[in-house]
C-alpha cells in the first residue's frame, strides 16, 4: 500500500489572549490609526448589539440574532476586504457590514420587520442577509464566477456557521469553487453551537477547515477572537483570490457568547462554566490589552469612546423608531420589475383593508 494523499491543517494566531504577540506582527498592527479603527468599530458593534437585544426585550424590535463574541472575526473580515469585493453574509455579521458601509438603522429595520433594511445604501452590490442556511455560499461562488467571466480583479466572501457546514449547499459551493478555481473565500465562523447542537454533533471531523481538502482547495484554521489573525489571513486569501490563485476556506474559532437569537435560551443546553471560560478569551479584551501596551489608549479615551458609541447607537435607534411602516403597496411594488395585472388588482384589495399605519 502507498499513501496517495494526505493533509494537514494549520492554525494561525497572531495576538494571544493577553494581548502579547504570538508571532511577528503584520505591518497594519503597527499602524495606530488602523488598529484603533478596528478597536473602535468592535466596541461600537458590542454597544449596538446590547442595545438591539434590549430593544427586542422591550418589544421594540423583532427576534434579533446577536453577534456578541464575534466582533474580531467580523471586523477583521471587513478590514481585509476591498469595497469592490462582494460579501454574502449570514445574519449576524454586523461588524463586517458596518465596516463596509451598512448602517445600524438598516440592521434594525431588517430585524424590525421591514424589507427596507435589506436595501443597503452602501454597498449596493453586497448580498442581503441570508436566513436559509448555507444557500449564500453558492451565491458567492456564482458572484465569483461573474467576476471571472468578466475578468474583473474582485472576489466574493461568503460567511457560514459551523452548523451550516452540514448542509449540502456548502459542499456544492466548495466543490464548484475548487473545480473552476473561482475567486471566492469561504469564512466558516465556528462559534461552537448551532442553536443547541454543538459542533461535535455536526461532524466527526476534527476541524471544519479540513472540509476544504475534499474540494481540493486550501483550508486554514484561525483564532477568530484575534482580529489581527483574521485580518491577516483573510487579507491573504482575498488577495490571492483577486489575482486568480483560486478559492480558500478559513475556519475562524470563536464563541457565541449570546443565545442563538433572542428567541433562544442557551441555558437549556450548555454549561455556565463553558460560557464563563469563553468570556476570558473574548476578542475585545485582548485588543484593548494590545493598544494599552502600545501606549495608544487610556481610561479616558475608553470613556470617550463608550460615550461616542452610545450617542451613535441612540441616533440609529431614534431613526429606526421614527420610521413609519411601509404602505401595503410595498408588498406588491418590488415583486417584479413591472406589476402584472392580477397584482394590481390585489394591491387595491390590500389598500382597502389596510390596517392603520404606525410606528413600532
Amino acid at each position, binding site marked *: 500500500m502507498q499513501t496517495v494523499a494526505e493533509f494537514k491543517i494549520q492554525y494561525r494566531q497572531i495576538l494571544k489572549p493577553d494581548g502579547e504577540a504570538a508571532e511577528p506582527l503584520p505591518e497594519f498592527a503597527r499602524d495606530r490609526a488602523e488598529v484603533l479603527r478596528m478597536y473602535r468599530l468592535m466596541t461600537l458593534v458590542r454597544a449596538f448589539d446590547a442595545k438591539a437585544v434590549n430593544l427586542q426585550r422591550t418589544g421594540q424590535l423583532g427576534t434579533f440574532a446577536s453577534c456578541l463574541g464575534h466582533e474580531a472575526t467580523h471586523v477583521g473580515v471587513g478590514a481585509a476586504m476591498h469595497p469592490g469585493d462582494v460579501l454574502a453574509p449570514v445574519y449576524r455579521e454586523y461588524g463586517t457590514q458596518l465596516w463596509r458601509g451598512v448602517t445600524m438603522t438598516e440592521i434594525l429595520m431588517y430585524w424590525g420587520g421591514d424589507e427596507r433594511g435589506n436595501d443597503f445604501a452602501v454597498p449596493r452590490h453586497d448580498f442581503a442577509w441570508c436566513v*436559509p442556511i448555507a444557500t449564500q455560499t453558492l451565491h458567492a461562488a456564482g458572484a465569483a464566477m461573474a467576476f471571472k467571466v468578466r475578468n474583473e480583479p474582485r472576489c466574493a466572501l461568503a460567511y457560514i456557521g459551523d452548523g451550516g457546514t452540514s448542509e449540502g449547499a456548502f459542499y456544492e459551493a466548495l466543490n464548484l469553487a475548487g473545480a473552476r478555481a473561482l475567486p471566492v473565500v469561504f469564512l466558516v465562523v465556528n462559534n461552537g453551537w448551532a*442553536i443547541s447542537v454543538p459542533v461535535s454533533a455536526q461532524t466527526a471531523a476534527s476541524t471544519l477547515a479540513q472540509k476544504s481538502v475534499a474540494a481540493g482547495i486550501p483550508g486554514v484554521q484561525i483564532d477568530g477572537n484575534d482580529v489581527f489573525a483574521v485580518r491577516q489571513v483573510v487579507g491573504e486569501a482575498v488577495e490571492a483570490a483577486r489575482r486568480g490563485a483560486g478559492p480558500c476556506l478559513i475556519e475562524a474559532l470563536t464563541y457565541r457568547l449570546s443565545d442563538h437569537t433572542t428567541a433562544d435560551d442557551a441555558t437549556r443546553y450548555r454549561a455556565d462554566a463553558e460560557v464563563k471560560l469563553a468570556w476570558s478569551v473574548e476578542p475585545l479584551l485582548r485588543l484593548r490589552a494590545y493598544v494599552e501596551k502600545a501606549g495608544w489608549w487610556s481610561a479616558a479615551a475608553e470613556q470617550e469612546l463608550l460615550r461616542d458609541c452610545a450617542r451613535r447607537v441612540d441616533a440609529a435607534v431614534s431613526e429606526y423608531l421614527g420610521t413609519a411602516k411601509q404602505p401595503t403597496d410595498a408588498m406588491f411594488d418590488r415583486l417584479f420589475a413591472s406589476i402584472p395585472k392580477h397584482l394590481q388588482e390585489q394591491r387595491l384589495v390590500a389598500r382597502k383593508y389596510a390596517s392603520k399605519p404606525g410606528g413600532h
Partner: protein
Amino acid sequence: MVEAITMAHAWEMQHDPSVVVIGQDVGANGGVFRATVGLQERFGSARVQDTPLAEATIAGMSVGMAAQGLKPVAEIQFMGFMYPALDQIVNHMSRMRHRTRGRLSCPVVIRTPHGGGIHAPEHHSESTETMLCHIPGIRVVCPSSPARAYGLLLASIRDPDPVMFLEPVRLYRAMRQEVVDNGRALPLDACFVLREGTDVTIVTWGAMTLETLRAVAELDKEGVSAEVIDLATLSPIDADTILASVAKTGRLVIVHEAARNVGVGAEIAAIVAEHGLYDLQAPVQRVTGFDTIMPLFRLEQDYIPSVKRIVDAVQLTLID
C-alpha cells in the same frame, strides 16, 4: 397546542417502540417551539436524536429509516427551510410504496411550523402547503386546535404512508384546551364541521379558523348563519363533507392564509364546480393571502386575511 403535540409524541413512543423523533434541536432543547420537550430525557438519545443541520439529511434519513421498519417523526424547524428536503419527499418518500409495488414503504411524519402572525424573522412565516398538496403519494394535515393536533398527529404517526403535518404557529400558544391523553386518534382524510349553519359554507384550516370564527360571530349578529368546515386534511380533500354542506347552504367561501394562485382553495372551488355547481346560488368567494412574498412582520397583518375581509366576502355571496 404545543403541549398536545408533545403529548401525542409521548403516547405513541410509549406504545410503539418503532417510533423515533429526529430533527434540529429536538433533543436537549426540546425543539425551538418546545414541541418535543422532555422526550429525549424520557426515551433516550437513540430514539430522540438531534440531526446535523441539514433538511435533506432529515428527509432522506427518514426515508431510509422508514423503509427499514422504523417510524420517524421528523421536525423541519420552519416551513421556509423545507425546500432542501423536497427532493427526498417528491422523488422518494412519496413514491416508495408505488414504485416498489408495496415491497417498501415510508411511514414518515414530517412536522413543520406553518404560517405567520407571530412577528418572526424572514423565511419563518410561510404557508406553502400547496406545493406539498400537489405531490401524489403524501398526505398533508393541518390541525386547528389542541385536541385536533393530538388526535391527528396520532393518526399521522400510525398511518402507513407519509404525512406532512403542518402546525400553525399562531395556534401553538393561542388557546388553552383540555386534551385527554387517551391515545385516541382522529380520522385523516376527513373534514371537521366546527359550527353548523344554513346560509353559507366557509371552508378553512389551521390558524385561519381563528379569524373565520370571529367573522362568523359578527355575521351571526347580522342574522347570517354560517357553517364552518375545518378542512384538516388538505390532501386528499374530503369532498363529500364539503359538497353536502354546499348542497344545504348554496354558498361557499374559502379562507386561507396561503397565496391565492393555485392555492388549495382553487382545488376546493373546482371540486364544487364539478360536483355541486347546481347547488350554488352565488359565485364562490376566496379570501386568501396575496400572490406576493409573505412580508416581513410589520406588514404581516395586512397580508393575513382579516375578519373584515371574510365578512365582506360572505356578504358578497348573499347579494340577491
